[in-house]
């Protein structure tokens, strides 16, 4: 187990390094310049900016400097803001995105699983249709439309919640719902099909045959086995949710880190592009590792390779 974990961590670091290098090279090769603006600026001003941010040095030197500061966990300055560094961006944005993402994830998992299970147990009956229509709406209605609808009714018309910003718990309700819809629908559909498959397995029949109660069969045998595919996608879903959604955060004026990913690219803000990519990759790699470990807990038949019996 320990050996496996160590191996995976080593592999993760290697993956990260490849990601950093590729991002670094790609980023410097896309057209566009971080300091370009409408019209051009005087040459001296441009050169001062370039040298201030070390962008006038050869690419290899820049790469070396970047890795060096990265080793000290310093993601560098933002080229577009002299008040907040990339570290500040992550430090202030991630907790917010994490909070929002966790709430959304809880909603998504809870209701996703419930809808999925109910649908599968009532196959081709109205609860099934109801859940699946809901799921289709969740998947096909883009979350910015859902967000706008939520704001329009719950905040503007009925004034039950504030429209936007991030101040109190009531500010978090609408964005959490808007963010949760898609993964919820996704989980519900996945759970339903997975449940249907499991329910048709022989061991379910066996369990029923040996006289177990319906509830016990479903809870202990069916759901547990049917969860596996859901757990597989959870890693990616969680990584996406906790690192923030640009659209939802932008619509609700939430100071999370979602905007880093989009605005970094728009502005050609090199350190922000690298910082957000590295941070996201690290989280994703970490969560995939957790998911792998979780398999063994959910399904003891799965053994981690390299583990001695």
């Amino acid at each position, binding site marked *: 187990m320990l050996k496996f974990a160590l191996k995976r961590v080593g592999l993760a670091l290697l993956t990260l390094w490849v990601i950093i290098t590729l991002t670094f090279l790609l980023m410097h090769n896309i057209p566009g310049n971080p300091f370009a603006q409408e019209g051009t600026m005087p040459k001296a001003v441009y050169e001062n900016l370039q040298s201030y941010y070390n962008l006038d040095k050869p690419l290899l030197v820049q790469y070396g400097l970047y890795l060096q500061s990265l080793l000290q966990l310093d993601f560098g300055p933002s080229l577009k*803001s002299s008040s907040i560094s990339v570290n500040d961006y992550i430090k202030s944005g991630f907790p917010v995105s994490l909070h929002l993402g966790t709430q959304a994830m809880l909603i998504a998992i809870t209701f996703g699983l419930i809808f999925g299970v109910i649908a599968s147990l009532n196959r081709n009956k109205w609860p099934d249709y109801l859940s699946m229509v809901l799921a289709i709406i969740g998947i096909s209605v883009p979350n910015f439309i859902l967000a706008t609808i939520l704001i329009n009714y719950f905040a503007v018309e009925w004034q039950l919640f*504030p429209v936007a*910003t991030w101040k109190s718990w*009531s500010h978090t309700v609408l964005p959490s719902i808007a963010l949760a819809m898609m993964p919820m629908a996704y989980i519900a559909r996945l759970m339903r099909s997975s449940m249907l498959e499991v329910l048709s397995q022989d061991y379910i029949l066996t369990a029923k045959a040996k006289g177990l109660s319906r509830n016990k069969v479903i809870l202990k045998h069916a759901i547990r086995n049917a969860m596996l595919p859901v757990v597989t996608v959870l890693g990616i879903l969680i990584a996406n949710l906790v690192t923030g959604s640009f659209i939802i955060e932008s*619509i609700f004026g939430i*100071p999370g880190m979602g905007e880093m990913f989009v605005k970094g690219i728009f502005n050609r803000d090199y350190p922000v592009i690298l910082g957000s990519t590295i941070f996201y990759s690290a989280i994703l790699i970490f969560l995939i590792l957790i998911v792998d470990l979780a398999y063994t807990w959910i399904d003891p038949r799965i053994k981690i390779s390299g583990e001695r019996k």
Partner: protein
Amino acid sequence: MKKKLARSLIFLLSIVFVLSGCFGGGTNNESTPEESTDPGEKTEETGPKILRLNNSSEPGSLHPGTAQGTHDSWILEHAFEGLTKKTPEGEIIPGMAKEWETSEDGLTWTFHLRDDIKWSNGDPVTAADFEYAWKYALNPESASTYAYQLYYLEGGQEFNEGKADEDQVGVTAEDDQTLVVKLAQPTPYFLDLTSFYTYYPISQKVQEENPKWYQEAESYVSNGAFKLTEWKHKESMKLEKNEHYYEQDKIKLDEVHFVIIDDENTAWQMYQAGELDLVYPLPQDVQGQLLANNDPEFVKGPDLAVYYFNFNNEVKPFNNPKVRKALSMAIDRQTIVEHVAQGGQIPAYSVVPPGIPDVSGDYQENTGNLFEENLDEAKKLLEEGLAEEGMDQLPNFTLTYNTSEGHKAIAEAVQEMWRKNLGVEMTLENVEFQVKLDREKAGDYTISRAGWVGDYVDPMTFIDLWVTDGPYNDANWSNPEYDKLVEVAKTTMDQEERMNAMHEAEKILMDEMPILPVYFYTKPFTVKPHVTGVYTPINSYPQFIYADIE
């Protein structure tokens, strides 16, 4: 079959209905305790006077020396004050300086500061603070984008280019209250510049003690009507009345709260829900609606900006003035403004926007329309122009714009007008803003969408753009006569001669049409009726320094 369809439709609809009911119920319960604490408009009337605004992006820098752009300047203009300031009518009046005099050649300006001016930490504002601030912005190590705003100073550009010493820059504090400024050449609009934010002072003591003073509200020190007391990055900002400001009895507001909301629709919805008192910018369709309904809360503020298309004057047949003019005459600007842009913009038949004073009257009004839309004339010019270039029809070309719904709609309208009116086929291409700028600079485009916001209130801020090899001349156009007129206007202090030269130059520009003006921007915003005293100078966001809440 039909029955079945109808039945399933009803089924679907009822599900949706039930669902929305479920949701409504669920969230209702959660929120009941919140209702009472929601937007507290009523309580504010008795408490401190608070104005609630939206700054649509986190300011990049709140240091006058390195700030650039409206998200920075909107805060700075209220937290700082320069040597001069402007009245709501646009007149330049004494600010930190109580009076000033100019030498005969217009090169030396001497400013005398007020006695009672203080920083928000109680320290006196001195002439040395101005000298220090200007040199700070010009210092190459500060990497200030707007350093070039100070190139008017003698030795300013050279210092910024690393070719001269700090001591050679033409600004000196003779004593605590006297600032002597030497200019590189006579600049008739220099006084206007002294109210611009790159010319604001910074406290030398504060900057030297803590070079990061401007990054957080706790260490922020300014000399204007308000002081920054809270800054939650990317979330909100709070300004409070500065008790050390010399004219504090004229300031009615106690606090100004900014939220930082990127999304125009959200900001508009917050305004509707009573969470904001003023909102700018507005979503495009909302602008159109408000304008059409004559909404009393809607204000069409003036703006110092022009929307235009660059012709690449080095690409055949757009090197031919007749071709360029034909295209310009064949679009219907009124339709674009009314039905596409929808913000009450003004169709442009010249390049300098209204709102800049001439020797007498308004510069743009005196200019009038320098060309007219005329389809027959356009067809004739196109034919002639093409013949001169040895072509019988316009080859398919591309119009490049930076990705935005608004620009796209305008580009499509223009495309359709040219197709219908001239039988011209063209393609549209959208690229990221940074890419568009790169390609314009490299001359890798045929026609591109552009906009220019004036840096200072003088026609020169626009006329200057198209001098031969000028850094902003993306059209790569060159006309010696034009250059000569610009030179005349730049070197004379005689206001009448200057204005005449610029009028002449603009005529040449519109006669040759290296760029195609579309409209003059406006600043449409909405403000709640209980807010008074907000005004919009032509070159900045709505100002609330003298605002009041009733």
